């Protein structure tokens, strides 16, 4: 069972529908109850950094999430769910992120913001998520990007006025800035890759 954390950061139904399409069962977690039934966790999210962190704190998910990740269980962050893994964001100064990866989120300074549309992702060697998908188009929708300070975890980059990290992997933790659930067949393939990695 894949647990999808509902912390008030946007509509989760499209993530659920995409997993259902690839034959994976999901459970929406509005609280900690049900977590014990899950083998993998997804942290989706659209919206702002500060309210998202507050949402996680309000449902007392911060520590369980850190423990989950520390114990090496499969985890996938999507969009804002990737950003909160880092230490903070220009969007909500004074709000600390989960700090699992080193780096902060900064606002794009060139082009139309938010970036809305299909952009190419350059896959790093050995990426499990992006296996077989170098330079593939994925759907992006964001104003802030992760300024990742750990080269070793960056497995995918995109260009938007600058080159930035849009996919990270470290052990069983993975996260992407784009929306695989809205990225057509390539997105479904990425979700499938992730599900298979967790087995």
């Amino acid at each position: 069972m894949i647990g999808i954390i509902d912390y008030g950061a946007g509509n989760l139904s499209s993530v659920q529908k995409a997993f259902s399409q690839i034959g994976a069962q999901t459970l929406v977690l509005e609280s900690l109850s049900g977590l014990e039934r899950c083998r993998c966790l997804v942290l989706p999210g659209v919206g702002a950094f500060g309210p998202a962190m507050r949402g996680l704190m309000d449902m007392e998910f911060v520590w369980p999430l850190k423990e989950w990740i520390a114990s090496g269980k499969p985890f996938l962050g999507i969009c804002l769910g990737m950003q909160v893994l880092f230490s903070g964001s220009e969007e909500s100064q004074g709000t600390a992120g989960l700090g699992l990866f080193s780096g902060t989120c900064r606002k794009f300074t060139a082009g139309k913001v938010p970036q809305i549309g299909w952009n190419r992702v350059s896959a790093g060697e050995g990426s499990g998520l992006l296996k077989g998908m170098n330079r593939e188009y994925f759907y992006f929708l964001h104003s802030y990007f992760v300024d990742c300070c750990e080269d070793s975890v960056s497995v995918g980059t995109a260009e938007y006025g600058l080159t930035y990290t849009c996919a990270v992997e470290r052990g069983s933790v993975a996260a992407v800035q784009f929306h695989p659930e809205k990225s057509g067949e390539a997105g479904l393939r990425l979700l499938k890759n992730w599900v298979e990695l967790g087995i």
Partner: protein
Amino acid sequence: MDNEFKSPLAVRIIPCLDVDAGRVVKGVKFKGLKDAGDPAELARVYYMQGADELTFLDIGASHENRTTMVETVELVSREVFIPLTVGGGVRTVDDIRVLLNAGADKVAVCTAALKTPALISMGAEQFGSQCIVLSIDAKRCGSSWHAFTEGGRNDTGRDVLEWAEEAVRLGAGEILLNSIDKDGTGHGYDLELTKKVSESVGVPVIASGGAGSLEQIYEAVSLGRAEAVLLASLLHLKELSIIEIKEYLSARGVNVR
């Protein structure tokens, strides 16, 4: 906007499905509607052809129509994994919520936003700017363009450029720009209008109304500076396929997916 910036994004090809009483319809200059098929079936076909996004507009916007549209969105979002925009008769924040919950990624507002601009700011605050698309039905009036409401029947007298800028300030994340003069004619997009709006706002502009040839689609992007193009008749009547359009644009040096 930074003039040095060259967008790496693929130009989005967006089929538009005008829906009335559960069927896709298409007219000319917003009139003389003809049946063009089943919405869910067309959505699947366009997804398989490589559509980058889909737009559904409820053009009847009656109570029954709204229920049918919600069901269509629920069905389509289970099978089609690209962004879905839904609009037509959206009046309240609750209307927006219902459509987002049904599976829409973005909701387009038009008439109600002109009457109550706060609908944009309230929608953006609750669901994020990325969800709120401002749809403008524009018609040339002398040397400028006016925003029309009620499916193109009512001239609000509002200058389109001013309205677009205000809507973006209020939180609209995208502009869907429909030319009433060009709608369904196949005479090409209103390039001057598209370029003016695209250069005056910092959010993406979707050109709509008038596409009749590959060259005109290319022009909407190159001369009109649109980030995306909306297509209806041309696709519904099978005059062109999405694949052909993308091949053509790619050969002309435009990024496509």
